[in-house]
């Protein structure tokens, strides 16, 4: 063992004595854990030393502790030691003690009160540096109590003959009046004398003090207006003064003081013509004489601009100020154009620092130290390289040439001033628009705000074009706000309707996934209101949809408009797309809708829109084939797993049986009056799942009717009685079915629905009361609601429906009520629980009443008001829903009609005559669980006879869990079907994927088959 090693081991056990050693030890640590260990050990040693009252080591210990504290480790146990150090007579001890107090304590800690006394003593010390230390500490951490206690001392020191003490006392006074504003009066007279001081330090602190006082108290502000001439003189001296090495910052004399004076002048001159008059000259002088090529100059110019804008200054001065801001934005641009290279302008990011005197001595150290310090020579080379780079990229990225921080401050100030002086800001519009493409998000955000503020009638076309161009590349976080603002601006300033429609359309195209509902509603309103442009709009939307179906809002708007004005689209016959004239046929429109429905971007809302639009088209299109195709498409959704879509599909399919009323039901929506709502609070998502635009419009119509109906007291009474009877009947039905446990839930829903039904649509009850005589009138009412315009006579539909309603009149009214309930219950059950089964298939004549009962099929009021949907839901109700639910809950026990089984099922295996089909469905009680019904068909096509000893196994990815139910039989006869259910729990909602293993014996050949099949998953949204 060598001696080095031993000594190292010994050393590591000894505590570290000096601060330097500790820092070295910490820096030598390779990992964070090592560092923690060293610091813990050292902290423990320091703690022990403190406990032993070791006076010699205290200084070093506190210093070490402060270092440890800075690294983020606890050091509060050193607080008392700092106090002890402060009490020591030695200057070095005091200095470290106060530093410790400033770092370890803050104004909220109780220990601080103990410091007050030491501070008081030190403020009366003969040594000015010790007084300075005490003042500095007070200024940094004074609490309100300390401020009160030490106010008198500070006041006294403000009058000291020593500038070093005076300036510190002034800042202490600032802190004191910030903490205790009442103490302000004590300092006013002293502050007055401070602004006549010649020392810059005293002057700057004095001005800070006065600014603080003026902001706190309006009376003081008036008092100090008298000081304006003095301040103006100071500023003038600074601007015109020659080189003073002490205060010079790259050629500008004491910019800090200038900024402070300008700021105080701003408060003093605010809304005071006299004070402004006095400072106009000097402001103009500063604005014109300050060199703007360096950051220092710009900081003064920036402050000057703020002052000019804040005081009632001359208009010439204001123009000057705005031009300065414009120059800020473009200063780099000018520099490049004049080829001004190598002037040492720090414009490319802020790594480069100006100030030759600072860098001159740096040459030797440049490389050794991190390679980061740039000396004059390399500085210029670096700059030249950057500029060359800028030349080469200038055309590709024009906005690169802005000085980022200047852009930032200029944009922000312009934002503030735009309300005051729009005209002057307008001139810098192009530069502002360029800033939209800046690399820095803060600048983009400011520029965006500003551009929206700049829009007016004259420039709306140009600016909107620019903003639309920006929208395409904008960050996702901007998009929603942008779409809203662009559309609002278009709404406000649109020169004509066509431009307005074009603009919104473009927004929908570019950022259709970021458009708020209100905007969409506004667009549809706009389209409906401009009947002269229907053809144009519908063609445009059709072309846009053909090009892109990925933008949700575009799809919604397009589908709605095509549904509404499909006839116009077809009548136009052709449309222009990029100069090419193309034909549109009914089949084209339908295939477009089909692609939307099948497409990967379809969600429930779009599907709802498409289904309804398809239905509308059925009355717009005359071609028989088209109608047949629509029927087929609707039929495809009759068993949809989305209740709303299923309901719509079923209702609409049934509507085809009533050709008499269908065209009237599917009339165009009435043109909405005025504006429904511009911009509401963000994020209403409560009533998703219905076409809300319609809901909104129809809601208004519906609301008007409610108003009329509520007056009729008899009607309301009756309706309540009716509800009671309905509830009893419904209860009875359910009990018979043995599903008592569900009754409670359903009852709640039903009562709610019933209440809603009677409040919103009292017509059926009125009908009950008045009998057949009013049936005609009621029918008119209904049609009125259905077409939502109230004055569509629909004469052709009358005879068709009338017999039905009158025949029904003869039936028992109880029956009828149950029917109503049945219709309503179907919807309620669908919404609330998985296993409801009302058999509401009433006799065919009950259609109208079913409809009325079912007029509130969904629990959202807005949806309920959707007149078209509710009217069509009147038609005989919803057996497929129940069938479907039976299928999902008990798929094994019930044989399904083949057409049902085929619906939404996917073939996973087909060999030797054995076909395996999978039908997925989401469990309503737990949407994370997918239940897959497996059907084994044996079509005997291979001539192998029955399948015996069938064993079906499946495996899922690790994130999912699989549960297999027993199969109905392990033997499948030829032409027979056997079933099995598996449940897949999929909490992460990953795509379903199955690996299947099937083994069976063929009865005829006796061959044992063992097969493995992969099943790639169900298409998105198929269940």
């Amino acid at each position, binding site marked *: 063992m060598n001696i080095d090693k031993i000594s190292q081991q010994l050393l590591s056990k000894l505590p570290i004595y000096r601060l330097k050693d500790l820092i070295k030890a910490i820096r030598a640590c390779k990992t964070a854990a090592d560092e923690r260990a060293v610091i813990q050990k050292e902290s423990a040693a320091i703690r022990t030393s403190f406990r032993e009252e070791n006076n010699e080591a205290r200084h070093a210990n506190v210093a070490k502790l402060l270092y440890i504290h800075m690294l983020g480790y606890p050091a509060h146990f050193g607080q008392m030691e700092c106090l002890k150090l402060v009490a020591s007579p030695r200057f070095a001890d005091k200095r470290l003690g106060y530093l410790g107090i400033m770092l370890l304590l803050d104004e909220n800690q109780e220990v601080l009160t103990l410091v007050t006394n030491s501070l008081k003593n030190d403020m009366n010390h003969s040594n000015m540096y010790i007084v300075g230390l005490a003042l500095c500490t007070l200024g940094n951490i004074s609490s309100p109590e300390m401020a009160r206690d030490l106010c008198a001392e500070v006041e006294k020191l403000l009058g000291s003959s020593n500038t070093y003490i005076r300036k510190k006392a002034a800042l202490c006074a600032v802190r004191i009046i910030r903490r205790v504003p009442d103490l302000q009066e004590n300092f006013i007279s002293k502050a007055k004398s401070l602004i006549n001081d010649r020392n810059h330090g005293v002057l700057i602190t004095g001005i800070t003090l006065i600014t603080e006082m003026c902001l706190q108290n309006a009376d003081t502000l008036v008092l100090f207006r008298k000081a304006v001439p003095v301040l103006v003189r100071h500023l003038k001296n600074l601007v015109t003064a020659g080189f003073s090495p002490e205060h010079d910052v790259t050629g500008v004399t004491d910019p800090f003081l200038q900024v402070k004076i300008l700021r105080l002048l701003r408060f003093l001159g605010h809304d005071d013509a006299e004070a402004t008059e006095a400072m106009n000259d000097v402001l103009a002088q500063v604005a014109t004489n300050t060199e703007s090529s360096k950051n220092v100059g710009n900081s003064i110019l920036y402050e000057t601009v703020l002052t000019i804008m804040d005081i009632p200054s001359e208009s010439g001065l204001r123009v000057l100020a705005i031009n300065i801001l414009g120059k800020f934005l473009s200063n780099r641009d000018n520099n490049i154009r004049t080829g001004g290279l190598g002037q040492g302008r720090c414009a490319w990011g802020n790594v480069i620092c100006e100030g030759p005197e600072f860098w001159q001595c740096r040459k030797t150290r440049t490389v050794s*130290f991190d390679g980061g310090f740039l000396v004059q020579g390399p500085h210029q080379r670096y700059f030249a390289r950057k500029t060359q780079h800028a030349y080469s990229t200038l055309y590709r990225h024009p906005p690169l040439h802005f000085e980022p921080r200047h852009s930032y401050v200029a944009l922000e100030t312009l934002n503030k001033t735009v309300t005051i002086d729009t005209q002057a800001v307008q001139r810098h519009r192009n530069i502002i628009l360029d800033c939209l493409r800046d690399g820095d998000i803060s600048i983009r955000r400011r520029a965006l705000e500003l551009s929206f503020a700049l829009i007016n009638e004259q420039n709306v076309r140009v600016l909107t074009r620019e903003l639309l161009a920006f929208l395409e590349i904008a960050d996702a976080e901007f998009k929603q706000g942008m779409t809203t603002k662009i559309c609002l601006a278009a709404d406000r300033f649109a020169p004509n309707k066509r431009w307005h429609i074009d603009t919104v359309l473009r927004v929908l195209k570019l950022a259709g996934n970021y458009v708020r509902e209100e905007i969409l509603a506004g667009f549809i309103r706009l389209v409906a209101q401009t009947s002269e442009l229907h053809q144009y709009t519908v063609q445009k939307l059709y072309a846009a949809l053909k090009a892109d179906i990925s933008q949700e809002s575009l799809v919604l708007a397009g589908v709605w408009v095509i549904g509404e004005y499909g006839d116009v689209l077809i009548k136009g016959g052709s449309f222009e797309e990029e100069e090419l004239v193309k034909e549109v046929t009914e089949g084209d429109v339908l295939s477009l809708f089909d692609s939307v429905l099948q497409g990967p971007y379809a969600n429930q809302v779009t599907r709802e829109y498409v289904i309804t639009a398809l239905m509308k088209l059925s009355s717009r299109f005359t071609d028989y084939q088209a109608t047949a195709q629509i029927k087929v498409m609707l039929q495809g959704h009759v068993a949809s797993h989305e209740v709303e879509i299923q309901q719509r599909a079923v209702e609409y399919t049934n509507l085809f049986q009533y050709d008499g009323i269908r065209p009237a039901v599917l009339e165009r929506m009435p043109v909405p009056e005025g504006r429904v709502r511009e911009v509401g609070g963000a994020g209403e998502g409560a009533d998703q799942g219905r076409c809300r635009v319609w809901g909104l419009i129809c809601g208004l119509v519906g609301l008007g009717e409610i108003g009329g109906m509520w007056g009729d007291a008899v009607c309301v009474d009756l309706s309540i009685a009716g509800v009671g009877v309905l509830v009893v009947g419904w209860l009875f039905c359910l009990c018979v079915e043995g599903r008592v446990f569900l009754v409670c839930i359903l009852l709640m829903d039903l009562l709610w629905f019933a209440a809603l039904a009677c409040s919103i649509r009292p017509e059926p009850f009125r009908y009950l009361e008045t009998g057949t005589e009013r049936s005609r009138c009621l029918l008119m009412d209904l049609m009125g609601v259905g077409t939502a315009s109230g004055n569509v006579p629909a004469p052709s539909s009358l005879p068709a429906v009338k017999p039905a309603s009158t025949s029904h009149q003869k039936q028992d009214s109880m029956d009828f009520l149950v029917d109503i309930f049945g219709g309503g219950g179907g919807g309620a059950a669908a919404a609330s629980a998985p296993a409801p089964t009302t058999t509401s298939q009433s006799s065919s004549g009950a259609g109208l009443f079913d409809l009325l009962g079912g007029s509130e099929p969904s629990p959202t009021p807005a949806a309920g008001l959707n007149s078209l949907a509710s009217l069509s839901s009147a038609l005989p109700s919803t057996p497929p829903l129940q069938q479907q639910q039976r299928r999902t809950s008990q798929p094994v026990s019930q044989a399904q009609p083949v057409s049902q089984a085929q619906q939404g099922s996917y073939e996973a295996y087909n060999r030797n005559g054995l076909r395996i089909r999978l039908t997925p469905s989401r469990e309503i009680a737990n949407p994370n669980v997918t239940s897959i019904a497996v059907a084994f068909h044996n079509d005997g096509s291979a001539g192998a006879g029955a399948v015996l000893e069938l064993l079906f196994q499946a495996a899922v990815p690790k994130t999912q869990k699989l549960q297999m139910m027993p199969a109905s039989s392990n033997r499948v006869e030829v032409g027979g079907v056997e079933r099995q259910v598996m449940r897949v729990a999929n909490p992460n909602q990953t795509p379903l994927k199955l690996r299947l293993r099937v083994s069976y014996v063929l009865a005829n050949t006796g061959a044992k088959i063992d097969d493995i099949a992969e099943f790639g998953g169900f298409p998105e949204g198929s269940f």
Partner: protein
Amino acid sequence: MRPVTPLLCTSNPLRMIQYIIVFNRQGKVRLNRWFNAQSDKQKATTTREAVTMILTRKKTMATILEYHQYKLIFRRYASLYFAMAVDWTDNELNVLEIIHRYVQALDDYFGTVCELDVIYNFDKAYWILDEMIIGGELQETSRKAIISE
């Protein structure tokens, strides 16, 4: 007579430096000073977030960040970042100058200052800071005066 216009900056008349953090490229804090009372936990969170934000800035971006209710203004000198948080209405360019002035003062004092100087003489760096800034307000602008005292 012109109509009375509101001051551009009346919302927050306080215009002081809220805190100063000096840290290196690895995010190690070399100096910090808080002019308003905050709990240690708050300080740690703020420091961590501010440092991360600043270190991820690209060179061409502005050195002004909007962070909570303050603006963070920073400047990089070799491996050291000097960041100051100021009130929203303060003059950002002037703050950059203050940072620069502080670095100049350090440079005058240490000769040719580097990160190691700041590490080993952090107490002196603090004292120089105290000569320049008290309670978040500038005290002395003369380089000579700062150093001599």
